[in-house]
C-alpha cells in the first residue's frame, strides 16, 4: 500500500497536467479509487490549481499595449508608407553588392589579363601558330619567356644566348626583384626592357597596374574568409553582467548580432558589419542555394542573437543530423555554451 501511495504521489503531477501515459494513468486511477489519502491529496492539488487558473484568467492585458503592437505590426509591412524600410533594404543590398562587385571584378579582370598575358608569353609558339602575323619569329631560345614564380636566376645572358626550358626561363634584370607580387608586372616589364618588337603588343602596361590591386583584393578576400572560419566565441565572458541580448565579440558574428536585432536601423549599420555579414553567411553555408538560410547559418545566427534555447535546439539537430561534419566540435562547444547561458539567469 505505501509503495503504491508513493508511486501515485510521484505521478500525480503528470496526471494533473495530462502527461501521464495511458498505462500509468490507469494504475493511478485504480489506486486513487481505493485510497482516501491519495484521493484527498489529488483533490487538494486540483483545487489549488483551479484557483490559480481562475486568478490568472482574470489578468487582462492593457489595451494601449495591444494598440501599440498592432501599430508596429502594420508599420513593419513593406507596403506601409514608411520611407525608411523599403528603401533601406534594397539600397543596403545594392550597396553591399557594390562593395563586393568592385574588388571582385577588379580581381577577376586582373586575373583574366594576367592569364592572358601569361598564356601569351609562356606559350608563344602556340600563340604564333594561331596565325598572328608580325610577331617575333618562333625561335624558342629567343622567346621572351617569363618566369613563373620560380627562383629567379640572375641570368646575365640575353634571351638569345640563354637556352631556357620552354616555359620557365628566367628573365634577366628586373624580374627577380618584382617576382613575388607582380609576376604579371614582370611579364609586362620584361618585353619592354628587352625591347622586343612583339612585346609591346602583348604586354601592355595594364597588367602591371591591376596586379597590385589584384594582389590586394585577393588578400582581402582570403583574409576575410579565414576570419570567418575561425570560431570565435567569447560568449562566456560576454555573458557576464550583460543585460539583454549578449553579443559575442567575434567580428563576423558581431556583425550579425548587431544587424539582426536592430532591423529598423539596418541601413545605417556600419560598412564593415554589413560587409562581413554576407561573407560570414557564405562561409558557413557553402551549400545553401538560392539565398535560403542553411541550418548551420541559422544556428549561428540564433547564437549571435543570444537566443539560447533556439540555438541549442538548432545545434542539437545539426549534431544529430550530421555527426561526421568537421564542424561538429564547434557545434558541440556552442551547444554547451547555449545550455550554460540558458541555465545561468536564475541566479
Amino acid at each position, binding site marked *: 500500500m505505501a509503495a503504491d501511495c508513493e508511486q501515485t504521489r510521484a505521478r500525480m*503531477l*503528470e496526471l494533473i*497536467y495530462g*502527461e501521464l501515459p495511458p498505462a500509468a494513468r490507469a494504475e493511478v486511477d485504480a489506486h486513487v479509487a481505493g485510497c482516501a489519502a491519495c484521493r*484527498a491529496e489529488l*483533490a*487538494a*492539488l486540483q*483545487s*489549488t*490549481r483551479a*484557483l*490559480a487558473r*481562475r*486568478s*490568472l*484568467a482574470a*489578468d*487582462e*492585458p*492593457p489595451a*494601449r*499595449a*495591444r494598440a*501599440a*503592437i*498592432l501599430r*508596429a*505590426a*502594420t508599420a*513593419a*509591412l*513593406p507596403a506601409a508608407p514608411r520611407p525608411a524600410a523599403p528603401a533601406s533594404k534594397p539600397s543596403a543590398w545594392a550597396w553591399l553588392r557594390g562593395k563586393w562587385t568592385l574588388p571582385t571584378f577588379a580581381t577577376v579582370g586582373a586575373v583574366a589579363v594576367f592569364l592572358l598575358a601569361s598564356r601569351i608569353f609562356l606559350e608563344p609558339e602556340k600563340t604564333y601558330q594561331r596565325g598572328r602575323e608580325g610577331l617575333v619569329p618562333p625561335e624558342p631560345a629567343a622567346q621572351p619567356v617569363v618566369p613563373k614564380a620560380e627562383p629567379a636566376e640572375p641570368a646575365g645572358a640575353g634571351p638569345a644566348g640563354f637556352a631556357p626550358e620552354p616555359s620557365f626561363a628566367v628573365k634577366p634584370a628586373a624580374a627577380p626583384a618584382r617576382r613575388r607580387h607582380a609576376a604579371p608586372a614582370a611579364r609586362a616589364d620584361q618585353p619592354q626592357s628587352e625591347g622586343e618588337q612583339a612585346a609591346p603588343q602583348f604586354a601592355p602596361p595594364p597588367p602591371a597596374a591591376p596586379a597590385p590591386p589584384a594582389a590586394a583584393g585577393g588578400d582581402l578576400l582570403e583574409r576575410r574568409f579565414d576570419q570567418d572560419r575561425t570560431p570565435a566565441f567569447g560568449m562566456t565572458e560576454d555573458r557576464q*553582467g550583460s*543585460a*539583454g541580448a549578449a553579443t559575442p565579440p567575434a567580428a563576423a558574428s558581431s556583425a550579425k548580432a548587431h*544587424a*539582426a*536585432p536592430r*532591423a*529598423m536601423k*539596418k541601413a545605417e549599420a556600419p560598412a564593415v558589419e554589413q560587409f562581413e*555579414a554576407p561573407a560570414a553567411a557564405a562561409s558557413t553555408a557553402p551549400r545553401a542555394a538560392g539565398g535560403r*538560410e542553411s541550418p548551420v547559418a541559422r544556428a549561428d*545566427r540564433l547564437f549571435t*542573437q*543570444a*537566443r*539560447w*534555447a*533556439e540555438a*541549442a*535546439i*538548432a545545434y542539437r*539537430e545539426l549534431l544529430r543530423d550530421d555527426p561526421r561534419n568537421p564542424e561538429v566540435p564547434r557545434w558541440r562547444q556552442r551547444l554547451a555554451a547555449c*545550455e550554460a*547561458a540558458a*541555465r545561468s*539567469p*536564475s541566479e
Partner: protein
Amino acid sequence: MDGPRDDEQLLAAYRAGDVAAFEALLARYEKPIWSYLRRFVRHDEAAEDLLQEVFLRVVRDAQDAAAPGWKGQAKFSTWLFTIARNLCVDRSRREAIRRAASLDAATDEGDAPVSLHDRIPAPERPADAVLAGRQAAARIDRAIAALPDDQREVFLMREVTELPFAEIAVVVGASEPTVKSRMRYALEKLRAALADLAGAGGAGTPESKGAG
C-alpha cells in the same frame, strides 16, 4: 479559410504581409504572455513594456528579410515564451531590489483591498461566496508572487499556456525532471498558502483559522 490556422501558418501569413494573421496570433497569445509577464515581473508597468517588446520582436523577426529567423523548428509558443522569459530574466538581473514575499505594494493594482479581506474569516453563508472567492484569489496571488523565480516561471508557464513540461524545459534551459520538480514545489507552496481557507487543502474543512 476553413478551420482555424495554426500558429506557424499565421506567422507565415503575416510574413507574407497579412496583418490580420498577426492580429490573430496576438489575440491568441497576448493574454497568456501578459499574464506570465505580469505575474513574473510583479510590476504592471514594467510588464506592459515587456509585453510590447515580446511582440515587437515577433514583428521584427517576421518582417526583417535578412533575419528569416525562427523557421518553425521549435513550436511558435515555445519560441514566444522563450523571448518572454529571456526578457524577464534580463530584467531580473537589472533589478536592484528583489521584491519580498509579502507584496502589499506592487501587484495589487487591479485588486480590491487585499489586506482587508485577509482579516475576514471565511464566510459560511452562501451569499458570501463571492467574498470567499476573492479572499482565496488574493491568497493565491500572493503565494504565486512569493514563489522563487525558478518555480514561479515554470508554474506560470504551465498554467497560462499549454506548453508541456518538455517544452518548458527547453525554454528555461533545464532538464524535464528538474522542471517537474520545480512545479511540484510550486504547487505545494500554493496549496499550503490556501490550507486554512475553505475548500482548499486537507479534507476541506469549512472553518477557517484566521489570517494565514
